[in-house]
């Protein structure tokens, strides 16, 4: 039974290995010449005013969370779309229930005014 999962393990190892190798080699071998100007934060060409880490309104956080919510929803579509043929009608109904639940959440957020800025 364990053999069935071997390809997945190899895939995971290979992909993470490749990613880590690319970043690590770049970090180790690449020339590093930090200068004050290069490290300064970019503010469309001007000297940045004040520190980068300042208090931000909570609305940004709200919009970020809403985005993550609906983005994960889209991620669930992918495996469903791949095995759409084999799942048949059951898969279709199941996914629509899933979408319906999230649609209720979306309408609630919309009516509550979480989407528009003010």
């Amino acid at each position, binding site marked *: 039974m364990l053999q069935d999962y071997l390809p997945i393990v190899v895939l995971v190892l290979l992909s993470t290995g490749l990613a880590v190798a690319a970043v690590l080699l770049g970090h180790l071998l690449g*020339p590093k*010449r930090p200068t004050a*100007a290069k490290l300064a934060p970019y503010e469309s*060409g*001007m000297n940045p005013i004040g520190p980068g880490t300042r208090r931000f309104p909570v609305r940004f956080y709200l919009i970020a969370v809403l985005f993550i919510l609906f983005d994960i929803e889209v991620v669930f579509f992918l495996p469903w779309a791949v095995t759409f043929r084999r799942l048949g009608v059951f898969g279709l109904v199941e996914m629509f229930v899933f979408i319906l639940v999230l649609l209720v959440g979306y309408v609630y957020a919309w009516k509550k005014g979480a989407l528009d800025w003010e």
Partner: protein
Amino acid sequence: MGIESKLGNLGIVTTTLEGVVNWSRTGAMWPMLFGLACCAIEMMGSQAPDYDMSRFGMELMRASPRQSDLMIVAGRLSRKMAPVLRRLYDQMPAPKWVVSMGDCASCGGVYNNYAIVQGVDEIVPVDVYVAGCPPRPEALIHGIMTLHEKVRGEKVRDWA
């Protein structure tokens, strides 16, 4: 090159490290969106469908210097703008090149007066000067082709 004759049909290509690195650099050299004056309109013209600079891998005009390799100084650089240009040049990551587009950027052009920096090479090291006021889009693309030849000729000790 003996290996290739033996492995011809295996679809393997061998080349030098310089060859690969230089090819990859000229393949996708993203310009920074840095239009100053009239030459910027011609630069937009060369990005537009008729002259289409993206045939040479310059698909995107990146807005921030952090993600761009090539700075096209398109237009006349005034004294007030010079420190900004220098700061943007410093904030670009290492393999970076500068094309000075137009006479005003290359040598002050028509404006020999108090307000214009007489040539961008006083501020940033320039690789290719493109003449013209404003240079035609073909001239700009020719300038970029010369830059690509220059980059292809770079040696390992230049950037290691």
